[in-house]
């Protein structure tokens, strides 16, 4: 480069010393200024003066935080109780499942009183149970209606998303879920933008009894086509009318279009922990959240199963078969979200644009997952509702599903669990493996047996024993630790009144603030008296962009919102402005010089090659 310039300049210098003098030496006050600025700009990025004193540590406030347990007045929900004749287990979590919802899910919305129904958000025709065909005391014709709901979606009328569902403090990725058919508003109330408690991630765990006649009714309330594929659940390829029943648009039933309904009819002969998910553009639709656990319980007398488990987690009314061997049952649904995918529905309103951005521009082969959820939430919110609360000498059944697009390696502290079932099939009892890391592939299900027998293998004794993905990105929220799918097995003696573990480590309250989640709190803040590993003034990274980002100013490729370069860009702009002014002021002179230079080049081309 420099050589080329010299090739031009040398003959120029020779030919016209006065012109060169003009080019290089002419003084205009602004030129000096420009020079000063340019030097400045070169220095800025690598500015590191030799200093005797390094910048001091500064105390960084954790910002506004939410209470660790924000749920008040739910004491009655936590207790063991009987509603509509349904025995509901105790759930001493901060945010326990609504026992009325559990009762309605067990009895069917058609079999509970209006008072009970009004305590829930169920539509009256959401779960219909009737006809005890085998005369064993429980209904065998089951209709479960599912709608497709968007959470943290776009509005053309205001900045922000609706209805909101926080995965972690201030983290609101756009998602789609199957939701049990609800009634009334999508939000909690007229004044709130928060989604009503039945519209949440993950899609609910569905439970039916082996041999039941089950109609899964998909009422597509969404603006895109969807289907349901009953992954692993015994279902015929076509139903009795000859309609396809596999949920695959290319081979079985067609798309279930917006505003239409499709009934999937099954009579599962085999038990097990299975999956249901949308099979339209599966690479994006499943990742968006249209995937849930589908459990077929053993046929037992008087076996009223909890047909939907909203938000998965603790099964407060386990089936007869499970209760025969276990004290408690938990559904653990792991998922992972790539924010680039989940932002699409927040940046556009026109469904045609969303379809294009999501399925023609977004490229899953270039994707990286950013948020890792357990039952729809990431740490710290997992400790409000996804703890496995145990007592000594109990047997706990865990049903585990990984719906992320990569392996998870779930590790239980303090416990080695036995994998009893893979993908719904019981493993030969003699060959069953007891271990403490469960490597679970995408769409795979494990049934685990955790025994809280303090024998040094099954349990190491009472405590707060976390369990988490050991693919370490899984314990972060977009790279910020702690976060992700961390939860804990907590012995009741370690649980406080409001359902929060009596932790013995550092203060966890900072995690409940937006500032922490957006990288605003130094990792080792206030470690000691003089804050030796605290923040350094001026070196704090800018907070990460807000999740519910307003639409980029122009199209994303043209403008990269890069706040780190803002100052630099401003200075470059300023310089350009000054240069333009200078050029304008000196236009006659410049024109003359250019003409001369061009003329010179033309005449001397022979000499310069």
């Amino acid at each position: 480069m420099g050589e080329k310039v010299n090739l031009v300049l040398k003959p120029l210098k020779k030919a016209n010393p006065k012109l060169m003098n003009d080019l290089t030496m002419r003084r205009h006050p602004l030129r000096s200024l420009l020079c000063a600025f340019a030097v400045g700009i070169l220095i800025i990025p690598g500015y590191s003066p030799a200093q005797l004193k390094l910048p001091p540590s500064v105390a960084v406030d954790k910002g506004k935080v939410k209470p660790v347990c924000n749920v008040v007045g739910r004491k009655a929900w936590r207790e063991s109780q009987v509603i509509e004749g349904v025995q509901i287990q105790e759930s001493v979590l901060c945010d326990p499942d609504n026992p009325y919802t559990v009762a309605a899910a067990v009895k069917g919305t058609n079999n509970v009183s209006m008072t009970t129904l009004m305590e829930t958000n169920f539509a009256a025709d959401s779960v219909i149970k009737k006809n005890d065909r085998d005369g064993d005391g429980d209904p065998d014709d089951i209709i479960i209606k599912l709608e497709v709901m968007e959470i943290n979606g776009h509005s053309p009328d205001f900045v922000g998303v609706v209805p909101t569902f926080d995965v972690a403090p201030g983290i609101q990725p756009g998602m789609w879920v199957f939701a049990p058919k609800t009634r009334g508003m999508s939000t909690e109330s007229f004044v709130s933008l928060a989604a009503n408690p039945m519209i949440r991630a993950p899609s609910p765990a569905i439970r039916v009894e082996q041999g039941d006649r089950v109609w899964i009714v998909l009422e597509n309330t969404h603006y895109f086509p969807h289907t349901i594929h009953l992954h692993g659940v015994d279902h015929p390829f076509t139903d009795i009318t000859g309609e396809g029943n596999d949920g695959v648009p290319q081979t079985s039933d067609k798309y279930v279009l917006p505003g239409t309904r499709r009934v999937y009819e099954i009579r599962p002969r085999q038990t097990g922990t299975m999956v249901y998910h949308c099979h339209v553009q599966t690479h994006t639709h499943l990742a968006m959240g249209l995937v849930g656990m589908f459990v077929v319980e053993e046929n037992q007398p008087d076996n009223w199963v909890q047909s939907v488990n909203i938000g998965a987690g603790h099964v407060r009314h386990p089936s007869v078969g499970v209760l025969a061997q276990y004290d408690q049952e938990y559904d653990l649904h792991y998922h992972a979200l790539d924010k680039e995918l989940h932002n699409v529905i927040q940046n556009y309103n026109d469904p045609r644009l969303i379809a294009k951005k999501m399925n023609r521009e977004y490229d899953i082969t270039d994707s990286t997952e950013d948020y890792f959820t357990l039952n729809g939430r990431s740490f710290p919110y997992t400790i409000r509702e996804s703890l496995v609360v145990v007592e000594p000498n109990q047997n706990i059944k865990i049903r585990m599903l990984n719906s992320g697009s990569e392996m998870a390696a779930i590790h239980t502290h303090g416990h080695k669990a036995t994998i009893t079932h893979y993908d719904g099939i019981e493993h030969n009892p003699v060959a069953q493996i007891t271990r403490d890391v469960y490597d679970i592939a995408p769409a795979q299900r494990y049934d685990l047996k955790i025994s809280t027998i303090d024998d040094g293998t099954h349990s190491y004794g009472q405590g707060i024993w976390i369990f988490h993905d050991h693919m370490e990105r899984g314990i972060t929220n977009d790279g910020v630790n702690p976060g992700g799918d961390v939860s804990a097995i907590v012995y009741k003696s370690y649980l406080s009144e409001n359902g929060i573990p009596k932790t013995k480590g550092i203060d966890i309250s900072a995690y409940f603030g937006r500032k922490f989640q957006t990288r605003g709190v130094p990792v080792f803040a206030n470690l000691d008296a003089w804050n030796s590993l605290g923040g350094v003034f001026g070196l704090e990274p800018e907070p990460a962009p807000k999740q519910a980002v307003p639409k980029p100013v122009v199209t994303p490729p043209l403008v990269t919102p890069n706040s780190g370069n803002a100052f630099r860009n401003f200075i470059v702009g300023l310089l350009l402005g000054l240069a333009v002014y200078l050029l304008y002021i000196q236009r006659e002179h410049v024109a003359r010089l250019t003409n001369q230079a061009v003329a010179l080049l033309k005449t001397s081309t022979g000499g310069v090659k």
Partner: protein
Amino acid sequence: MGRFWLIPTIGCFLFLSTSVAEEPDDLVIHNNLMDHGNGHLMDMGGGMVMGQNTEVLPGGCDSISEEREITVRAGHKYSEKFPGTIFAFDQQQWKVKPCAKLTVHFINEDNIRHQFMVHGLPKYIYKAGMFHLEATGPSKISGTFIVPGYDQTYLVHCDISQHMEKGMKGQIIAGKGGISMPSVPGLTPQIIPDSYDDETLKTGGPPPSPVIPTGSIVVATAAGGSLLTGTLIIGLAFGLLGAPILARRFKNMTPAEIIQELSSMATKIIDWLITKSKPLVKLLSSLNLRKILEELDHYKKPALACLDWSKKTLIKLINRFK
């Protein structure tokens, strides 16, 4: 001759009978609702009325001004005339007199739930200020409420997630009405519109690459990003406007002098900021900043759109001058 009058009559009759949309055979009529008090009616088939009021006169009404009945149809098919929507009502606007007793017959023609939800009614009569009809189609559900006695425009929508955003929205105008609702299909524009600038139909070929306007001031940085950002434009403006002033100030100075002058200016500015910011910080912390920011947030998208527009105009201008 005298019988010919029959022809137009029959024709007219036929026309009328076909112009009424055909009801599907399996249309469920929700006419056996259970009254749960306070204007809340429900049946086990998912039919629901909330805020029913046939008697209580709202403020400003001495009597019922008119008894109106409207039939509203809802479904995917009504979105056909509004590109970029998926659900819609068959009409988007209804005009009534203040104090009108309005009976709404809501016919949902889809196989899913839809709602006819009116907002902004007085809360002392209507719970949460709402009148609400809901049913899973194909079905018909009816309800009645009394419109308050002043000019106002009321939001009508379906509150199922994204149904309003994707087109199922309208407004009831009482008397002269009030402020129109935004983004009512075919009637009012969206506050935050989508950008269709880069939507040229591409068939095959390589995947879309970033579009860089030719000859514009877009300069690729070493990091591969684009320099054309808001701050650059602001800098450019400052440079252009400030150049004459700076030229006067730094006349006949050497670069070294200028740097010295600049650093002393910077020191002065920082001093000034530190002394002045203390009372400002005090003032700010006494204000409810969060609330103000929320208010400001409301204007953020229009402001960004404005910036976007100015930037595009600037690029256009630059291209033209080139």
